[in-house]
């Protein structure tokens, strides 16, 4: 298929394709990070993860309309405030959900799946009632639209770079929080041994609530960022859920590094296959490969071998 193209063309395309892979990687990490915390650290199967993302997207939509109507001068910068608000809204909702629902189900992980599926239906209908059944169009500030011209033929989408930056920031932030902070220490302690953590004076319920809230908040930021590249509608969250779970599971649920590695390998596979095959087959093959590998290596890519 490359016979007709000049070397320069091919080089440019490969460079851009590399970036496409990196952007997809960032998107996947952003999608999966919140879930990796909730599912990986807490063992809760949050089927409403997509809806928490969409809540973030709707917050961004509200922000954009608000700034357009009342503060048009500040419109170029609204996106940052929108992401903060998205984090707060999804995080707060997450904590509420933890309080009302999840905390009763820690011993029954499969039941969290059913309950959160119910929650996702309720949230979808709520979005539909509040924002209407149609997708909403989120106005972006002009500086986020378009692409950077690197060379004559290499162009990199700005929103892609922005997503990459957001992903990097959040990933580093989460890693620091989990592995370096006092809170992270408590989270890990609670996950490792709940009764013992309680016995040494950690308020395990509070840690659970904040952890769940953190995961949902990150989902909200992801949703906010995705308004740049995807649709915002009541059922848009459903589009992400299978991919997200596969990434977390494939990475070996308990490790953030695993999630990142898994997002990397899946995104690279998919983006390469998409380039050489047709889109639908690329998707099927990627999913099949992931499922196949999981069947052979159920513990995922990265896990510690321990005495059971």
């Amino acid at each position, binding site marked *: 298929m490359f016979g007709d193209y000049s070397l320069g063309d091919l080089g440019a395309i490969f460079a851009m394709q590399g970036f496409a892979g990196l952007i997809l990687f960032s998107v996947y990490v952003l999608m999966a990070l919140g879930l990796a915390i909730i599912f990986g650290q807490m063992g809760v199967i949050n089927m409403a993860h997509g809806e928490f993302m969409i809540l973030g997207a709707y917050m961004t939509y509200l922000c954009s309309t608000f700034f357009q109507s009342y503060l048009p001068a500040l419109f170029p910068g609204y996106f940052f405030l929108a992401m903060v608000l998205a984090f707060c809204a999804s995080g707060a909702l997450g904590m509420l959900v933890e309080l009302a629902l999840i905390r009763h189900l820690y011993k029954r992980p499969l039941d969290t799946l059913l309950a959160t599926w119910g929650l996702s239906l309720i949230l979808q209908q709520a979005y539909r009632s509040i924002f209407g059944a149609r997708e909403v169009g989120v106005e972006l500030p002009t500086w986020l639209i378009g692409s950077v011209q690197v060379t004559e033929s290499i162009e990199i989408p700005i929103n892609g770079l922005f997503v990459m930056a957001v992903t990097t920031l959040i990933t580093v932030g989460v890693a620091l929080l989990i592995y370096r902070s006092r809170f992270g220490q408590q989270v890990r302690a609670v996950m490792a041994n709940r009764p013992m953590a309680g016995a040494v004076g950690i308020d395990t319920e509070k840690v659970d609530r904040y952890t769940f809230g953190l995961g949902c908040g990150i989902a909200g930021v992801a949703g906010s960022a995705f308004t740049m590249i995807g649709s915002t509608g009541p059922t848009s969250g459903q589009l992400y859920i299978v991919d997200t779970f596969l990434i977390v599971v494939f990475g070996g649920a308990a490790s953030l590094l695993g999630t990142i590695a898994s997002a990397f390998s899946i995104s690279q596979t998919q983006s390469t296959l998409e380039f050489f095959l047709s889109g639908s087959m690329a998707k099927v093959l990627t999913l099949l490969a992931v499922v196949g590998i999981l069947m052979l290596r159920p513990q995922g890519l990265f896990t510690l*071998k321990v*005495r059971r």
Partner: protein
Amino acid sequence: MNAAILPGSVIGANPNAPEYLLAVDALTVSFDGFKAVNDVSFYVDPNEIRVIIGPNGAGKTTVLDLICGRTRASAGSIKYKGQELTKLTESAIVQAGVGRKFQTPSIYDDLTVFENLEISFPRGRSVFGALTFKRDAEVRDRIHEIAETIFLKDQLLERAEFLSHGQKQWLEIGMLLIQDPELLMLDEPVAGMSVGERIKTAELLNQIIVGRSVLVIEHDMKFVEDIAHRVTVLHQGKVLSEGSMERVKNDPKVIEVYLGH
């Protein structure tokens, strides 16, 4: 490990020789580089009661896990009646005649005592065997017999979760008995028991060891002294000492790491 110190064994004999019921040879397992069990060898005779002692983290439970196939060995061999166990699945090991009791009572809470014992009855272990399994007189009689032995004959129809801790331990022992294993492995059978239960358990063990070998992990020295034919002391994944309780008790190495503190 020096085979010469084992009474009743022949120096230089092939460890695979059928005189040993169980021959553990150079057994090693490592978890991410940490060697939980390191080059452990010991040999159990038919009808012998062997107790494994050692401080926490010595690798005692891991050795049992390795024998019954729960954990896979990194190196070494485990031969049971001349058959290599390290390659077999757990269920095949059980079917070969090795029974295992866990540290915390591991019974089926949702089933009755009767059903707990019935499941352990060694017949109809394949899928279709289980489908066509009939609760006939042989099964009933055997279950009643075992229930009597483990002091639970009045609780047969009770759901297992309502039993006391001691009763649960007995039930699990009963579940092993009904399998009629030649090698019985017990992980801390009297832990958490009241004094009365402990005496009853010792009595129970003395009853059931007839005609089989038993491998026991236990911390309770009084209890160990009561039942052990021989004792193996593990420390940091290695065999520290082995022999009669008397001998082990006076081994300076043992005193230093274990009995001393």
